[in-house]
């Protein structure tokens, strides 16, 4: 897969800060993948996103989009991307459909809004004022807003934050469908479960530096414990046994246990992305800088 984005030695400093917020980060986003960008508050996630969607300028380093310097792109860049910000952003005294139509008419390419609105369950409420929408509805409308120009690349900032599990699932399914249709996604989030379920690769950013870029699977294998935990019942008690994964098929005790005992649970020693994040970066995701 070719790189759709290539970020090289990216540094950025806000005028009011003395220190760089981004301290020379490097990463690539491959065409057609879902790339997760993880880090605690203040780590530089949003700043990075703002730079690569051309909201923030005056950065140091190089960014290439589809092989061309991002600085050489003019307004046509925005025809190609869709952005969903963390907080719901709409004109509250206009209906959902008025909001969507207003923004859609600013683009050359136009997606099927009816299909999108139905997909996120908002079609019935399309003529309601956005002020009357719940937070969950506004977040779903944000995603429709990001997709209304049929973008090739989608930027999502904390897309499921504030959504109940049912709506979060709708959104995650929509993101997967976008990927299947050939789109590329950049997600910033601190919700590890979502990232784990959605992303092909993830980058960990802390204090303006990227510590790791890899697939969730590789990270779990690398940082997880290679062991199996078995729980079984014996004499009305739960017994727990741990086995190393090395030569598991030749481990007689393990083979006898699964053959003879009344097994209740079997777990591999995979760790969670959150644990890996803490291991790699030394900070928790909620930790403020």
């Amino acid at each position: 897969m070719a790189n759709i984005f290539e970020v090289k030695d990216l540094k950025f400093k806000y005028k009011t800060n003395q220190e760089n917020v981004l301290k020379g980060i490097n990463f690539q986003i491959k065409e057609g993948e879902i790339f997760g960008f993880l880090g605690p508050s203040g780590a530089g996630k949003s700043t990075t996103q703002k730079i690569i969607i051309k909201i923030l300028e005056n950065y140091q380093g190089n960014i290439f989009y589809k092989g061309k310097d991002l600085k050489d792109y003019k307004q046509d860049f925005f025809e190609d991307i869709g952005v969903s910000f963390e907080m719901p952003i709409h004109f509250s005294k206009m209906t959902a459909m008025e909001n969507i139509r207003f923004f859609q008419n600013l683009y050359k390419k136009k997606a099927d809004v009816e299909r999108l609105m139905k997909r996120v369950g908002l079609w019935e409420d399309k003529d309601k004022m956005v002020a009357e929408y719940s937070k969950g509805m506004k977040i779903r409308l944000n995603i429709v807003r990001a997709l209304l120009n049929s973008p090739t690349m989608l930027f999502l900032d904390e897309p499921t934050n504030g959504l109940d599990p049912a709506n979060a699932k709708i959104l995650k399914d929509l993101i997967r469908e976008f990927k299947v249709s050939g789109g590329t996604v950049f997600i910033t989030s601190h919700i590890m479960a979502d990232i784990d379920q959605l992303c092909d690769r993830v980058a960990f950013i802390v204090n303006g530096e990227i510590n790791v870029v890899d697939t969730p699977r590789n990270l779990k294998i690398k940082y997880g414990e290679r062991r199996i935990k078995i729980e079984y019942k014996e004499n009305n008690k739960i017994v727990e046994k741990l086995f190393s994964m090395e030569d598991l098929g030749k481990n007689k005790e393990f083979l006898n246990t699964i053959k003879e005992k009344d097994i209740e649970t079997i777990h591999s020693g995979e760790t969670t992305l959150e644990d890996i994040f803490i291991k790699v970066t030394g900070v928790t995701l909620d930790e403020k800088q």
Partner: protein
Amino acid sequence: MKNNRLIYLIKGELIRLHKYKVTTISIFIAIIWSVLLFFVEGDIFNSLLPVLILVDATTMSFMYIGSVMFFEKKESTMSSMLVTPSKDSELILAKILSNTIHNFLSTALIITVFVILKDVQISYLLIAIAVILVTLYHTSIGLLLSYYQKDFTTMLMSVMLISFALLIPTVLFMLNVLTGDIWEYILLINPIQSANIIITQSFKPITLDWKYYFSLGYLIISGLLIYRFLVLRNFKNYAVSISGV
């Protein structure tokens, strides 16, 4: 698409002025002014009408653009606009031009009322030029002011302070505290004074003197410079700061 987008953005701004009740308020204010002036007679009426048009095109322009900008700040909608193919200049011009159209219509309403009811003698062309130019100029200043104010109340305070500061020299000159021809020239640098001249000279009998042409040229040139080097140049920083993302 390019020009269409500007027209489309202007239309969007006008719809939002209506949805956010700014249009209703401006029509309501125009009606109040019309009713009040209806009961004023003679010389007082003749001197009050230009002042009213001046206030509508200057102070009210600040107010309307200020309210639009603070509505957008409150809803953080600017961030969504920043990631569309619209150019900064299109976004700014849409705001300035929609505000000018909106303000022009409310001023036209007042003028129409008095042309019909009090047979006011006025050059329609000159007053249209004056109102459009003065509104464009002061909307740009209002936009610039909104970049540096935290909220609408602070903006109101600033508008009052600036208007007061600009009015002092004019009043002192009228009261003969400031004397001499030199002040007549110096005061023309004051945009409110220039605005006053081009509005007043639109009333019949028309006698356009050098002050009219100077004021017209001054407002056009300084307005373009303010737009290009202050309003447009500082827009992106402002838009990012209020985008809330």
